[in-house]
């Protein structure tokens, strides 16, 4: 009998398995960071982890409140500027995977982290930071987010970060570098965009989640194939690592 696991643990493990050894990853705080550290401590020891603030391969021992927290810089291998990280590494084309969160995402994978509209009123949030830059230049973009009807929508209120723009070839028509793979890992399922129209489609559903659950919680129509794959479950080793080494204070899992 395998260990029981939480949904956040399943999300972290699912995301971690998408990373390959030796890749260069730009990563934000929270579950993306947990997933990246899990991969580095299991099948991908040679990942290079880059924080946009200009820190490479730190080995934090205390949890931080954001990438501006020195707790996240401990035992870094290299300190640089935004130009050094987002310019000379990311824009230069050396980043394999950009790992982001988001306020809202649409059916073409465009992400909003700027504002929410309510009639003529807006509510303003964080804005881009490095997110727009990361999704422009990373060869692959992975998103981890909570699955809610108002968060996965037909069209975002503001395109902070481009996924596949308006689908098809519209991203490259704008002159943007191609994104070869985009995944959205939620608490219910995994989406990808690997079809001609570059529109959100189910890759797998987490065990115990029904098609009706997906429909009830998604603000855009998703078709549910009869033989949709169930997301692979975490191994005991992965859960052990998460709880004892990666996030012992259980801040994210």
């Amino acid at each position, binding site marked *: 009998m395998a260990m029981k696991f939480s949904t956040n643990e399943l999300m972290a493990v699912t995301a971690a398995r998408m990373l390959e050894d030796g890749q260069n990853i730009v990563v934000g705080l929270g579950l993306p960071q947990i997933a990246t550290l899990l991969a580095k401590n299991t099948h991908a020891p040679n990942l290079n982890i880059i924080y946009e603030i200009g*820190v490479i391969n730190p080995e934090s*021992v205390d949890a931080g409140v*954001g990438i501006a927290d*020195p707790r996240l810089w401990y035992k870094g291998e290299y300190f640089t500027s935004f130009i050094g990280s987002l310019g000379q590494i990311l824009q230069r084309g050396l980043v394999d995977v950009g790992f982001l969160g988001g306020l809202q995402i649409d059916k073409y994978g465009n992400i909003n982290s700027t504002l929410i509209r309510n009639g003529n009123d807006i509510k303003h949030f964080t804005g881009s930071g490095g997110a727009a830059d990361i999704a422009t230049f990373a060869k692959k973009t992975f998103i981890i987010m909570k699955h809610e009807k108002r968060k996965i929508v037909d069209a975002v209120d503001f395109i902070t970060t481009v996924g596949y723009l308006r689908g098809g070839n519209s991203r490259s028509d704008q*002159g943007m570098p191609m994104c070869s793979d985009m995944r959205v890992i939620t608490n219910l399922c995994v989406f990808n965009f690997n079809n001609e129209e570059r529109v959100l489609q189910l890759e797998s559903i987490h065990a115990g989640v029904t098609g009706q659950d997906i429909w009830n919680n998604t603000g855009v129509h998703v078709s549910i194939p009869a033989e949709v794959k169930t997301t692979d479950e975490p191994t005991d080793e992965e859960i052990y690592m998460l709880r004892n080494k990666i996030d012992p204070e259980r801040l994210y899992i």
Partner: protein
Amino acid sequence: MRNLIRKLNEVVSEIPDGSQIALGGFAITRNPVAFVNELIRQGKKGLEVYEIIGGMDADLLVGAGCVKTYSYGGGSLDRFGKIDRINEAIEKGLVDVREYSGLSISLRFLAGSLGIPYIPTKTILGTDVLDNLAKKDSAIRVEASPFTGERVVLLEALQPEYSVIHAPFADTKGNVIIEGPVWDVELAKSAKKLIVTVDKIISNEYVKQHPGKVVIPGVYTYAVVEVPYGAYPTSVYKAYDYDGELLSSYAKVNKTQEEFNKFVQQYILGTSDHYGFIDKVRGLDKLSRIQADPVYGYTKS
């Protein structure tokens, strides 16, 4: 040799209303808080403020009504909260706010530091960030590359009249030492006048023995101002930690203009210098509890 060492109130007093000022802070680390508080005390108006990632510094300035335009690449107080004086200024159209991405605004400073007129990039193509900027910011255009014909965003170089950064150390010749990441180094090098507030002025002899630690040489520096704990309540790596309790309470205060005004009245306008601010807002004894551990670079509990 011109004396670079200045007093905070004097160097701030020479900055005219309406000046361009780039700030070096990033969310909750190395914000030039002492400098910004002095701008507020002296009642500066109409400032054109630039910053890569917004933090408490710009939020204070915008909330205090000192700012006409604010250009930035996004920002927050990390998990403590949001920069809600800036968010509300955007929501109500109170200030002309121009939102970039982190890289696109950094490239404007890089171009300024290189002395070139503009710089091309592909970042922010396709975004509403670009659409919004194109409507109101003459510093941004989309053109075809003369070499390949592909679409590129052209960003005008920025050499702000003043850049203000906070660093742990500089010597009397303006050589600046910063430990940790240096997101603000191009912003510093692009300025017509670079003002560096430091926790401590050190000797040129120390710099001569450790030239590899200098991230901004004195050729760029206009003024060095010694303000111990000048970034408080934000952190300086290897010197002192952020004050999480104060940042948490500020993230509540900044939700409404009324509460924010009371904060400014009591702790900034109601004090005459940065020690006065720290003493009134938290008590000077707090400083002994946020000293950085020399190995970890923050307060190790």
